[in-house]
């Protein structure tokens, strides 16, 4: 139990707006071990980013409020800490990188300034030492001519370079946890490959645990050890990466995996159409009753419409929130029919 670095229990973050109550995160539990890479996948609006921001108490209050739950970091509940105490953790022990490297860097300070800020604040370094350390960090994340770059402003760098700077800032204090929220979505594929490789290498060097949030199943398959699939503010499925991709249990995961075009498969001429998931992701203000996926689910049963299933076990470390995992309801209905693989 104690090898968990981070343990989130039943987190609920709601938005109180003029449109009503938006249940962005509605009872998410997850845990992260030391040095592990945990992938969180989901579509836009399913609560991935709100979960990440909640961990660091960065959600805007109002309109959002964490109404329930515990976020245990090394045994301490972050939600119960005072603001100065949270500030001690933020950027020091848990840090975060965001999707859009242009808007998350301050345009009026040099990148050297922005890296040094973290170091002087959390590690009490003198200004000159902090600048030296900044140059070292820039070299570490693979920025050429670091001595010159340290005096440049964010607009003078390309997108990939900016994301490297963000990583340098995030790792400057050797955090225990790095939360990467869509770190490569704004970047080109070749740059994306470089940034992911850099993240994984640095992770190895520093022993940092990484929470990688993305909508791209390919990135998850290549980088994460364990995956959590989120749908409508809830954990739909949780498993080790290989297990999840080879033996998905939740219909949402299955459908999602079937619907993405795969680059390796050579398709036949008559099979031009992709598998479709009908409908759209529900709005957090108007969630359906029962299982949140039931209006789109190909295996929907009566009970799905009225009662929401718990996370049920399929094997030792594989969980899925689906009634079909309950023996009473499955009665052989889905005997592996969704598995395309021979």
């Amino acid at each position, binding site marked *: 139990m104690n090898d968990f670095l981070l343990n989130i229990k039943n987190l609920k973050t709601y938005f109180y707006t003029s449109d009503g109550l938006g249940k962005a995160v509605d009872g998410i539990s997850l845990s992260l071990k030391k040095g592990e890479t945990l992938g969180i996948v989901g579509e836009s609006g399913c609560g991935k980013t709100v979960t990440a921001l909640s961990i660091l108490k960065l959600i805007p209050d109002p309109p959002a409020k964490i109404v329930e739950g515990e976020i245990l970091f090394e045994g301490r509940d972050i939600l119960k800490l005072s603001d100065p105490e949270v500030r001690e953790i933020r950027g020091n022990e848990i840090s975060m990188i965001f999707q859009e490297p242009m808007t998350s860097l301050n345009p009026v300070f040099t990148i050297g300034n922005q890296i040094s800020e973290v170091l002087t604040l959390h590690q009490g370094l003198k200004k000159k030492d902090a600048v030296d350390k900044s140059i070292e960090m820039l070299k570490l994340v693979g920025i050429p001519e670091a001595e010159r770059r340290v005096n440049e402003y964010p607009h003078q760098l390309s997108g990939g370079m900016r994301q490297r700077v963000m990583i340098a800032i995030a790792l400057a204090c050797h955090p225990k946890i790095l939360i990467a929220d869509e770190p490569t979505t704004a970047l080109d*594929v070749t740059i994306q490959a470089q940034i992911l490789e850099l993240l994984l290498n640095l992770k190895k060097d520093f022993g940092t645990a990484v929470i990688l949030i993305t909508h791209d199943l390919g990135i998850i*398959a290549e980088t994460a050890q364990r995956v959590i699939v989120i749908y409508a503010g809830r954990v739909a499925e949780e498993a080790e990466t290989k297990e999840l991709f080879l033996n998905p249990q939740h219909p949402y995961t299955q459908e999602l995996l079937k619907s993405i075009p*795969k680059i*390796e498969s050579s398709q036949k001429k008559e099979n031009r159409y992709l598998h479709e998931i009908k409908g759209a*992701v529900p709005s957090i203000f108007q969630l359906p009753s029962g299982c949140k996926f039931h209006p789109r689910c190909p295996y929907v049963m009566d009970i799905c419409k009225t009662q929401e299933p718990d996370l049920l076990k399929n094997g030792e470390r594989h969980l899925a929130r689906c009634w079909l995992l309950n023996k009473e309801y499955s009665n052989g209905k889905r005997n592996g029919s969704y598995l395309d693989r021979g």
Partner: protein
Amino acid sequence: MEKETDHILIEAKNLKKHFPILGGIFSKPVQWVKAVNGISLNIKRGETVGLVGESGCGKSTTGRLILRLIEPTSGEVVFKGKDIFELSKNEIRSLRRDMQIVFQDPYSSLNPRMTVGGIVGEPLEIHHIAKGQEKRELVKSLLNKVGLMPEHMNRYPHEFSGGQRQRVGIARAIALNPDFIVCDEPVSALDVSIQAQIINLLIALQEEYHLSYLMISHDLSVVKHISDRIAVMYHGIIVEIAEKEELYKNPLHPYTQTLLAAIPSPDPTIKKSKPKIKENEKDLDIFQRGCPFQNRCSFKMNQCMEDMPLLKEVDKEHWIACYLQ
């Protein structure tokens, strides 16, 4: 023997678009950004040609040039036997009936103050195809075709989700029964589970109307799924073009190889041998001579720094612009 040119619907020949960088006190062009620098490409009837490349490589500019939405610096686009840049204003107007575009962002490409019925019906009215009740009936059937309901006619774009908006954009594009549609990143703004719906819609419409598509995207797996042939662009030129299975199985240009190796695969059992992407290199100075890929290429030769390699056919229907072959 039938002539191959009979099937060619549209052909771009040595198309160039250079944008000026203005400077000095008189704002004169001091240098030129060669956004599109000599593209030759043909698209056959009923064919989908994919155009892939990273951001800023000129793929959208190419799409716009082919529709004459912008004027080229030089080159020609032959559509149904005529160079579209030679056409008069009236002829252009009828050309618009044959060529359409679907944009990337369904949020900004639809007028927020027009109803969906107005948006889809506008081209019908402008081209004097139908008005009044007849137009309304046509719009209804168009909405039906793209998977929307007739009652959606009176709603505004903000009432729709991203996927539905893209359907509206597609309904508008097919309203005039065109032969050719440029799809500029049609699914990149959409959620993963919605992408398949839109891709399938595009395929179904192609089968029904025998459309030709130019599919512009940075997502190689989407392009691979929908295209017959794929052209890879880098810094304003096409570096490789081939039938899709050939391109993915046997990429010859170093850039195509890099690009394909960089795509993360959603199958954890596949272990790819990653060719090392050259790290930390400066990207090309846009004013430099020679091959645009030289700074990132592991096989750079002296020749690459002197002259730009030209596209040549190395295998049947497989063209590359590289001195290695």
